Every structure is written in structure tokens, then in C-alpha cells.
């Protein structure tokens, strides 16, 4: 239908979907969570530095892999300047707010005395649920910003895994970075696995031209 053909929003949505059909986004975010989960188990002195530098390094590496895998198969497409600027701005805002909230929550909740304000005690008591909620919100926001619906599902999975972790650890719950490790690693494994399935399907659907 002619009207369908000129549905520009649908065309833009299809372009975005195709661009993320390769599963690389899932693999990289999942890989980062897995790496983070692994690091929480180690006694490595420079853990915070490693966690911080892995995000920008991973982003650079992601774009390089995209050039090697996606463009020769799907072809190259450049989004409009407005869209690129909007995505970059929204992603920075999401990550900055999420990082601030996470750190505030983590350190406010850590070792709170009985006399601490009720908000701090609440954070202390439900810290794992709070962190799971933050991760779920990050994935939800990234899904919205990048128009990747799969991230919404990962957001739900994050909430479920962190809730299960909270129930498993039971009460009294001790706030510790180490407690964040297993849920992050589990979500990471799920994301990498689903990403790998998408990647396999993508390679089959768009074979590299000889």
C-alpha cells in the first residue's frame, strides 16, 4: 500500500530494528554485567577503576565490532544528526543519573546505624531490591532511547533476578558489593546468551557477500 510505504516512522523504526538485529548490543551490555559480577568476587585493588574504564572501552570496541560484523552484511546507514545527538544526550543523562542514584543508594545504605533516618534504614534493608530497580530502570531507559524492545524484557528479568536474590539472602541482609555480583552475573549470562542467538540468526539472514 502506498500509505504504508510512506509511513516514515515505521521506516525509521525498521531501520533501528535492523541495526540492532545483530545482538551485539545484548552481548556487550551482558558482557559488561558479567565482568562486573566477576570483579565483585575478586580482591583486586583497582576494581572501581577497571569498572569505570570498561564502559567507555567497551563502547569503542562495540563500534569497531559493528564495523566488522554488521556493516558488511546489513550495509551502512547513518542516522540523522538530530537523532544521533538526541541518543547521545539521553544516554549520558540516563547513565549519569543512574550512576549517581546507585552510588548514593549503595553508600547511604552501607552500615547504617540504628539511629539513621528512616530513608537510609529503608535503603539499607532493601538495598538489593533498590539496586535491581536502578538496573531495571537503566535498561528500560536505554531501550526507550535506542528503540530496542528487547531491553524492556531484560529490565523485567533484572527485577526478577534481584528480587530472587533478595529473597534468597533473606534477613538480616548485609549491604555489600559482593551481593551485587551474582544477580549481575546471572543477568549478564542471560543477555549474552540471547545476544548470541540473535547474532547467529543475523549471520544466517545476512550472509557476507563474497
Amino acid at each position, binding site marked *: 500500500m502506498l500509505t504504508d510505504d510512506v509511513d*516514515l516512522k515505521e521506516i525509521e523504526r525498521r531501520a533501528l530494528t535492523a541495526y540492532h538485529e545483530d545482538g551485539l548490543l545484548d552481548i556487550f551490555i551482558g558482557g559488561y554485567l558479567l565482568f562486573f559480577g566477576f570483579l565483585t568476587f575478586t580482591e583486586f585493588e583497582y576494581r572501581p577503576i577497571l569498572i569505570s574504564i570498561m564502559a567507555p572501552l567497551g563502547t569503542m570496541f562495540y563500534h569497531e565490532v559493528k564495523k566488522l560484523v554488521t556493516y558488511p552484511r*546489513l550495509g*551502512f546507514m547513518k542516522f540523522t544528526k538530530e537523532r544521533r545527538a538526541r541518543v547521545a544526550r539521553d544516554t549520558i543523562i540516563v547513565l549519569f543519573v543512574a550512576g549517581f542514584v546507585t552510588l548514593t543508594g549503595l553508600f547511604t545504605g552501607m552500615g547504617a546505624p540504628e539511629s539513621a533516618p528512616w530513608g537510609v534504614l529503608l535503603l539499607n534493608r532493601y538495598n538489593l531490591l533498590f539496586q535491581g530497580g536502578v538496573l531495571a530502570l537503566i535498561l528500560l531507559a536505554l531501550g526507550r532511547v535506542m528503540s530496542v524492545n528487547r531491553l524492556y524484557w531484560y529490565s523485567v528479568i533484572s527485577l526478577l533476578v534481584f528480587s530472587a536474590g533478595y529473597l534468597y539472602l533473606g534477613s538480616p541482609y548485609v549491604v555489600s558489593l559482593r551481593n551485587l555480583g551474582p544477580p549481575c552475573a546471572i543477568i549478564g549470562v542471560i543477555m549474552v546468551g540471547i545476544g548470541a542467538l540473535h547474532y547467529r540468526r543475523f549471520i544466517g539472514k545476512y550472509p557476507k557477500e563474497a
Partner: protein
Amino acid sequence: MTPTPSNHDLPPVKEIDRLIHEPARLLIMAHLYVVEGADFLYLMNQTGLTFGNLSSHMTRLEEAGYIEVEKSFVDKRPNTRLSLTDAGRKAFDEYRASMKSLFA
């Protein structure tokens, strides 16, 4: 009895850009409209057009000044990048407007 409309009562069908109106070219223009630029392979995958088909329509649109074609080599392989020119973007906007007014 309903009076037969005279030619000047008809909607502005004549104003519709026939070059864009052709379905394959309309698809190419629409896909290029939502991005800054794309290469030949991407357009082939997204529009479902064959190499020959896309190539011939690309030439027509380039001759009309609606798209800009840039040929280069990426990793020693030929690469053709396409983007809408300002005239092409304007023509596509006008085409959409005239189609909307036609069916309004």
C-alpha cells in the same frame, strides 16, 4: 443529477512528482529521508530491490538531482553511499504534502 466536474475542479493531481511517485523510487526516497545517508547494500536489504533495479532507479534520482551518490573504496571493496540532496528532501516534502491534500 450530479454535475460532472470540469478539469479545473479536480484535485491537483498534476502537481504530483511522477519521478518520486513510482513505488520503487518512493521507497528509496523514504528510506533515505529518515537517515543522513546509507550505502547501496543497506538500501537493497531494506527495500528488497534487486541490484539492477536499485541501480537504475538510483541513476534516475541522481539525474534529477534528488540524491547524491558517492563512490569510494572501503577495505579495498567498492562502496556506494547515497544521501538525499536538499532539493530531494524538499521534493519529497512537497510530494507528501500534495499526496495528503489529494486524499484530505
